[in-house]
């Protein structure tokens, strides 16, 4: 196998860490040294030639090759079985509507990955307790590989091209799985099926998201107050017409589904509730001072239409929580993208059963 990347000879593993730190090639944490042997293994696991261009970034004149995805996946500590998910992720990120360049270098978002379908269980992607938090290898390393790809291949070096004022903790890793049991119990299709990928396939959805906001409602036993709580959590957003991700926690999902609501019903209700008047926005200083007094009662919705609310089900099932993920400051200039995995790709995402003796 011929690899094109520049080779750096270093004394040992510690020197490899120094090389990455010195060049700003990482997120500040130690990396797995991407040796040619490891990278070859990852390229092979993807089933794609190393020099294949998986996506392009016209704003930076950049091409993302399979080999570079593999180098960064190794460095991030991924398992090679995740390669097909990462390839699908790069395809999704580099689709024109996502606007990868601007969402990477401005605003305060990271691409949130929502993995759905059979590969969730095949790769042990966490869909339960501490959903956005640490502790799970697949979520941590796939999410981190995306961060390294953004930094090393897409210009997102913090403080250099990425001039985000605050960024957010999800810029280390922002990868969740959709529950493979809860949404379907009541006939809710998986997220990717809402977005054009056949329900029985696997997919990755990418969304330029700010940090998640918790919506707690432990007391209601019917959908009304729960959806009102979720809609209220959506209000502090940019009002620039982006999409919203709403992660409905299993306890909330159970109550909503028991009442017979479909996902479309939930989207409609959230769309009806998640809005503020021009007057309220202006009093909060949230609008440039161009509104006239006659505009005061006019309502601004957080999204432009119900379909722009992406519903998934995940999280721990002990308490009554959901979470919402606000959109990038540019709003409708970045759209979420869902990319299906082909059956062959999904088949490659299989961690071998642990051998026990």
């Amino acid at each position, binding site marked *: 196998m011929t690899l094109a990347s520049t080779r750096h000879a270093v004394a040992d593993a510690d020197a490899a860490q120094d090389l990455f730190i010195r060049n700003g090639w990482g997120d500040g944490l130690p990396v797995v040294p991407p040796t040619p042997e490891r990278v070859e293994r990852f390229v092979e696991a993807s089933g794609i030639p190393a020099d294949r261009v998986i996506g392009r970034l016209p704003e930076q004149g950049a091409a993302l090759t399979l080999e570079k995805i593999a180098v960064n996946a190794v460095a991030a500590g991924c398992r090679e079985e995740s390669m097909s998910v990462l390839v699908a992720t790069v395809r999704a990120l580099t689709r024109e509507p996502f606007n990868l360049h*601007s969402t990477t270098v401005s605003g305060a978002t990271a691409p949130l990955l929502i993995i759905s379908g059979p590969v969730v269980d095949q790769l042990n992607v966490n869909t339960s307790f501490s959903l956005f938090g640490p502790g799970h290898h697949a979520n941590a390393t796939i999410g981190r590989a995306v961060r390294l790809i953004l930094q090393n291949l897409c210009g997102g070096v913090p403080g250099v091209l990425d001039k985000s004022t605050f960024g957010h903790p999800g810029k280390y890793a922002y990868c969740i799985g959709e529950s493979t049991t809860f949404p379907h119990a009541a006939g809710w299709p998986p997220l990717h099926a809402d977005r054009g990928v056949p329900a029985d396939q696997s997919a990755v959805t990418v969304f330029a998201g700010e940090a998640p906001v918790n919506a707690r409602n432990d007391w209601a036993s019917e959908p009304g107050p729960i959806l009102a709580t979720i809609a209220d959590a959506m209000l502090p957003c940019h009002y620039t017409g982006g999409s919203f991700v709403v992660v409905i926690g299993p306890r909330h999902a159970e109550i909503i589904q028991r009442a017979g609501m479909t996902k479309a019903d939930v989207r409609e209700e959230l769309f009806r509730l998640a809005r503020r008047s021009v007057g309220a926005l202006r009093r909060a200083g949230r609008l440039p001072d161009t509104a006239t007094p006659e505009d005061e009662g006019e309502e601004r919705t957080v999204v432009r239409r119900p379909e722009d609310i992406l519903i998934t089900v995940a999280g721990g099932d002990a308490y009554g929580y959901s979470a919402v993920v606000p959109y990038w400051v540019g709003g409708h200039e970045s759209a979420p993208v869902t990319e299906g995995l082909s059956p062959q790709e999904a088949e490659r995402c299989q961690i071998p059963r642990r051998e026990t003796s």
Partner: protein
Amino acid sequence: MTEGLVVLDPTADVPRETSGALPRPATLAGLAVGYLDNGKPNSDRFLTLLSARLREDGALDAAWARKPSIGRVASDEMLDDLAAQCDVVVTGVGDCAGCCSCTVRDAIALERRGVPTYVVCTTEMVTTAKIAARAAGVPELPLTVIDHPLGSLTDDLLAVRADVALGQIRGRADR
């Protein structure tokens, strides 16, 4: 323990051919000047003020274009139109990382069409602009730099920025 290790570079380390920027005309007097507004708040007002000053130097307003999307590069069609109508173009204002890289690429795309193009960016974005220019193969692209920020400025302050830009464009006229 120190048997040595080879690691692969994780960055897009593609060696690139570079070229110089086009020479700027000695004077803009009598030249058809186009303005490519990147759509950032106040860019239109800034470019209007700058165009009035350049007209006093004898420049002719030839074309105005405003990009529909701040954080993306201009379409080939828009660039072709500008190139067909203008001797030089002024584009800006790159005052954020997303838009500034795009504005630099737009300028270089216009230069490749034979039109010397002045990029206006803010002080905070000079590094961003230089990275974008290097990545696009024209590392020495001249920049017209005004103080950051831009979006919140009043007319008085915008006029000062326009004077500064005018001085730099005039000063560079003999390059």
